[in-house]
Each structure stands twice: as C-alpha cells, then as structure tokens.
C-alpha cells in the first residue's frame, strides 16, 4: 500500500494520487467481480431474495402481483444487461426500488439470467 502514501514532493497531488488510485482499484474490483462466478452460497441467497423479497410484489413464482410478471415470456424483449440495469437502478415513478447498494452488478446479471430462463421460478438455480 506504499503507493497510496501521500507524496511530499509532488505538490497538489498529495490527495489526487491516492484518490485516483482508489477509483482505479474500485473500478477494477467491480469489473473483475462482474465476471467472477458466484459461489453456491451466494446463488442460494439470491434465489431466496428473488423468491421471497422480490416475490412480495412480483409473486413468489414470478407470475406478478403489484409488480409486473417476470416469467421468461415477459422478458423476451430485454437483454440480461438491460434487466440487470433495471434491478440496480430501479424504475422511477413506480414502487420498483434501486437495488444498487444491496446487490453487485454480478448479482444482478445472474438474477437476470435466471429470470430469463425461468430457473428461479422452478427453484432450480444450481
């Protein structure tokens, strides 16, 4: 971590360098994490989250409720990336909240893929 130590010689960069380094580290971490396969435990947690908590509005078997149905036939038009973005950012003007902060991009992408294949509904996500 020595490269984060403020440099006394470079004037003005005492804060800038560590800040930039932090941004790069976080960005790289997120980029890598988006492609790192999720652990079996995380998949179980997410399956439970989708069925139980998303299920409050979308139905435990994703057939819809106060929120839209999320069955594969309802999601044909959307790519996993688009769905992940909706999960992370929410839908302004509706009760769909942004899940960013609770879910990483990798989590959201995995959930999107499960929804599109209908595996969440069947409870068989491994």
């Amino acid at each position: 971590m020595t490269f984060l130590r403020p440099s006394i010689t470079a004037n003005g960069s005492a804060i800038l360098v560590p800040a930039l380094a932090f941004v790069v580290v976080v960005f790289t971490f997120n980029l890598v994490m988006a492609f790192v396969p999720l652990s079996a435990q995380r998949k179980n947690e997410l399956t439970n989250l989708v069925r139980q908590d998303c299920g409050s509005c979308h139905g435990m078997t994703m057939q819809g409720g106060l929120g839209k149905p999320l069955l594969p036939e309802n999601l044909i038009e959307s790519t996993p990336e688009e769905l992940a973005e909706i999960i992370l950012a929410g839908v302004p003007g509706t009760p769909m909240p942004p899940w960013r902060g609770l879910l990483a991009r990798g989590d959201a992408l995995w959930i999107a893929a499960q929804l599109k294949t209908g595996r969440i509904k069947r409870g068989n996500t491994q």
Partner: protein
Amino acid sequence: MRTWLSVLFAALIPLGLLASNFHGQARSPALANSQPGLRGTGDLGVIIERASGSVQIIETTGQSSLARIKGLGDLSHASVVFSRDQRFAYVFGRDGGLSKIDLLQQTLAKRIIQAGNSIGGAISDDGKLIAVSNYKPGGVKIFNADTLVLIATIEATYGDQGELSKTVGLVDAPGGRFLFTLYEAGEIWMVDCADCAQGAKPRLTKFKNIGLQPYDALISGDGRYYIAGLFGEDGMALIDLWAQKPAVTRILDGYGRGQKKLPVYKMPHLEGWAKADNHYFLPAVGHHEVLVVDAKTFKQSGSIKVHGQPIFVMARPDGRQIWINFAHPRNDTLQVIDVKTKQIIKQFTPGKAILHMEFTPRGEQVWVSVRDENRIDVYDTRTLKKITSLPANAPSGIFFTWRAGRIGL
C-alpha cells in the same frame, strides 16, 4: 304380596340409577378421549407457510401446533379471515386460491381457484359473504361464505379503454358493505351488499381522484374511517363513512417533505394500524420512522425514529405497547415502543426475515414469524422475554381467531 313387590321395586330403582350413574362416571373420561374435537376455538390460530403452500393450525394456551393443512397453492402474501363462529378460516392465496379450513376437524373443507392473481379478502359483518380482491382480472368477487358459490363479480374498470385496475385494501364495513381501492385508477369503491345473499345486486359508490398509486388501505376499528395509503405521493386519502355524504379528504399531506426518501424495498402494511392513547401509530413510507397522528384531527403530532423502514406497526390490544418489524435489509429486528413515553423500550434480533406479528386476544403473548429461520417465536409482552419457539416452514402471516369479531379484519 303386591305391596311387598312394589316396595322392593321402589328400593331397587334408586339402586339401579346409582349403578347407571357409576357406570356413566366410569365411562365419561373415555368418552372425552374419543371426542378430541370437543373444544373451543377462541385460542386457535393459523400460520401461513408460504413456501410449501400449507398452513399450521396452532393453539395459544399451551403454545402448540395442532395440525398442518397442505395443498393451498402459492401462499406468498396470503391472508386469512375467520367465520363469525370462529370455526372456519378462509385463506386467500396469491394464485387466486380461496381455501376454507375447518379448524375443529383440521381439514380443508373447500377450495376454489377464483382468479389468476389475488391479494386478500374480507368477510361481511353478518358472516354470509366472502369478498376477494384480485389483481388479475382486476376487481372483486363475492362468494357465499358457506358454499363458496360465486354471488357477484365487480370489474374494476377505469379510463376510456375500459381497462381493469388491480384492487387493494379490501375491507368489510358496517351495514353489509365492503370498501376497496383501485391501484392504477386511484379510486376507492364502496360496495353495498347487505342483501346480496338474498340475490340483490351489489350497489356501487365510486370515489375518484384519491391520489397516485394507492397501495393498501384500512378501516378504523370502529368502522368509521377508511384510509388509503398513497405510494406515488406523500399523504393519505380518508373517507368518513359517518358523513351525510361521504367524500375523500386528504390527510398527512406532504409528510416527510424536505427529507430525502430512501428506496422502499417492501411496501408497508396498513392493516392493523395501531391506535393507542388517542393516537394512530403508522409506518412512514421510505423513512426510518413511525408517524404519530392525532386520532381526532388526523394531523401528525410527532414521529419516532426507529431501526428501519417499518412494515407492521401493531398495538398490543390494551394499547400500551407498539411492536414494529422492518423492511429488507433490516428485517432481522423487532422494536417495542412504550406508548406512554413514546420511547423504544426493547430491541430484539430474533433472526432473518421477521415478517409478521400477532397478539393473543388480550395481548399477554405476541407470536412472531421468522421466515428464513423457519421458526415462530412466542414472546411474553410483560417480561419481554421469549417463552418458546415452534418450527414452521418459511412462516409469514399469523392470524388468530379473535379477528372474527373485529371490523375490517
């Protein structure tokens, strides 16, 4: 000779009676054992096991489980009302299933699929009608409570295209009425169904422009006020049913204005709005607060900072304590407010996903469902200590039979 015989007879009769009496006494415990169903239902209840489509019948005197009834379909967000004799529980499932459970015989008495997607129901004040609130097709259906035969269908049409709105916040009201709210349409409809059981058509009164995205509603315990919570804007829509000409007024307009709203990961519930000490205690939407509202003026008189976004804010029957659970991701915690001082006097962390609480009729116990721990915890509300736990499969709603005698439950 005849006299002697009659004397002998007279002497024998009481003996015989005595003998049969002994016989009866000797038999009675066996008789009681052979009729285990001979009991009251006032201490019974139903626990929804949402993942497995089953319910447990429990009793609160000895805190035990009596039976499990299976095959009730998708029970996410399921709710229950009771027949007025407290013998039958009507379970409203998410998949449109309406199941009638016999608590004494511990059997599924009847079951129908009445819609594609539904959210809850109500029983009429005379106990003759069951109404169900449906998302798909949007509207309300009314059934004979005895037979579950369809009596009336009310389509929640709105707009120029004749679209159907999802319906929420269905309750019974005195005078053979039901009220419900149209989520997309932003309307409240009152249904007069006092003579529906005799074949009369339901009479509708519509209240329009009540506000954006009404997500749930409740009726006050005296049956006077119907109040719909709005998701799309701050504030609530209120109807005074005692008014000469009932109309919608706005209450709590702009509460929380100027504060940044947090993402709402779970809609709060309005059923069982806590009224205590002449105030209502209700969950704020998108804030870590319980609102305190004057029960006469419906003006906010204060707020209490709490652990997370409240879901259920429930008063113990005597009104002295308020118990609160919270939205994801803070749903592992329970808090207890002392109504007199408005202070939080206790915080528990029983486990992941605390979904519901139900008090016993006089409030000495509260039962709590801890979904992700597959457990029901029972607390003593005087000592604030756990009495016992019961295993349950992903439990959500808990419903006790005392609801049978309450307006709006």
